[in-house]
C-alpha cells in the first residue's frame, strides 16, 4: 500500500519543484487529461476492491484514456466543436459512480 502512496507524493513533489510550465494554449487539454487520469485511478481502486484488478488493463487504460481525452479536446478545438465537454461529462459521471462503489465497498467491510 505504501508504494503507490509514495509514487503519488513523489509525483506531486516533482511536479511542484521542476519548473515545467505549460503553454497556456494547452491548459485545456491538460485539464481533460488530468480528469481522465483521475478516472482511471479511481477505476483501478474500484477494481482492486472488487478483486478484479488487472495491472495490464489498468496501465494501458490509464495512458490510453489520458491521451484520448487530450486528443479529443485537441480535435474538438480544431473542428470548432467543444468535444472536451463530452470528455468532462463522461469522465465526471464515471468518477462519481466509481466513488460511490468504492464507498459502498469500504462501508461493507
Amino acid at each position, binding site marked *: 500500500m505504501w508504494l*503507490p502512496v509514495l*509514487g503519488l507524493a*513523489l*509525483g506531486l513533489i516533482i*511536479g*511542484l519543484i521542476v519548473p*515545467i510550465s*505549460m503553454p497556456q494554449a494547452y491548459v485545456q487539454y*491538460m485539464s481533460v487529461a488530468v480528469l481522465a487520469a483521475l478516472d482511471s485511478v479511481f477505476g483501478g481502486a474500484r477494481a482492486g476492491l472488487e478483486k478484479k484488478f488487472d*495491472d495490464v488493463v489498468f496501465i494501458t487504460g490509464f495512458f490510453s484514456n489520458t491521451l484520448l481525452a487530450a486528443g479529443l479536446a485537441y480535435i474538438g478545438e480544431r473542428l470548432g466543436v467543444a468535444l472536451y465537454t463530452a470528455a468532462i461529462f463522461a469522465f465526471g459521471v464515471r468518477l462519481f459512480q466509481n466513488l460511490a462503489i468504492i464507498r459502498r465497498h469500504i462501508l461493507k467491510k
Partner: protein
Amino acid sequence: MKRGQLYVAIVLLVLGMMLAVQFRTTKDIQQNAPISRAQELTARLKDVTEERDSLLIEVSDLRKKLEQTGRKGGAGKAISDELDKARMVAGLTPVEGPGVEVVLNDSPKKLEPGEDPNLYILHEEDLLKVVNELRAGGAEAISINGQRLLANSEIRCAGTTILVNTKKIVPPITILATGDPKALQSSLEIKGGILETLRFWGLQADVQQKQKVEIPAYDGPVVFQYSKSVKEGD
C-alpha cells in the same frame, strides 16, 4: 501483487506530476494574465495620450507658422486671400453667418419594462440623416457639438456614444449650419422628413433659424498621406 503495486505507483507518479503542473499553471494564469495585460494596456494608453497631446501642440504651432507666412509673405494680397478662402472651404477657419441651429436629444419618456431602449435614444444614423438633409439644403459649414465637419469627418457609433472627428459626442446634440436659414429649415421640416420621423419616436428635435451662427474651426490635424493632387495638363 508486487508487480501490480509498482505499476500503480508509476501511474500515480504520473498523475501526481500532471496534477501539480496543472495546479501551478492554473494558478499562474489566474494571477498573472489579467494583471499584466491590464498593466500593459495602461502603459500603452499613457504613451498614446502623451503622443497625442504633443502632436496637438505641434499642430497649433505649425498652424501659427502657416498663418504668419501667409500674412507677411509679401507675395501679394491675392495669394493670402486665396489661402484664406481655401482654409475656410477646408474648414480650418471659424466661420459665421446666417443659418440654423438644430437641437436633438434622447426621448424624455420613461422606459417601460420590456421596451427596447434603442428606440428612444439618438443614434448616429439620425445625425447622419440630419447632416445629409442640411447639406442637401445648401449648408456651407456644419458643426456638431463644436466639432466642425470636414470632408473626411466621420459620424460613427461607438458603444454608448457617437464619434465625430474621433471625439465623443453625447446628447443633447446641437448642430449648427450656415446657409439660407429658410431653405435649411424647410429641408429638415419637410413632410415625412427626418425631424418628423425623429419626433414620431418621441425624440426631441428642434430647428431654429438664426441670423448669425458661429461655427468653430476644425482643431485636429489634417493629414493626406495617400492622396496627391493631380495637376491639370500634365
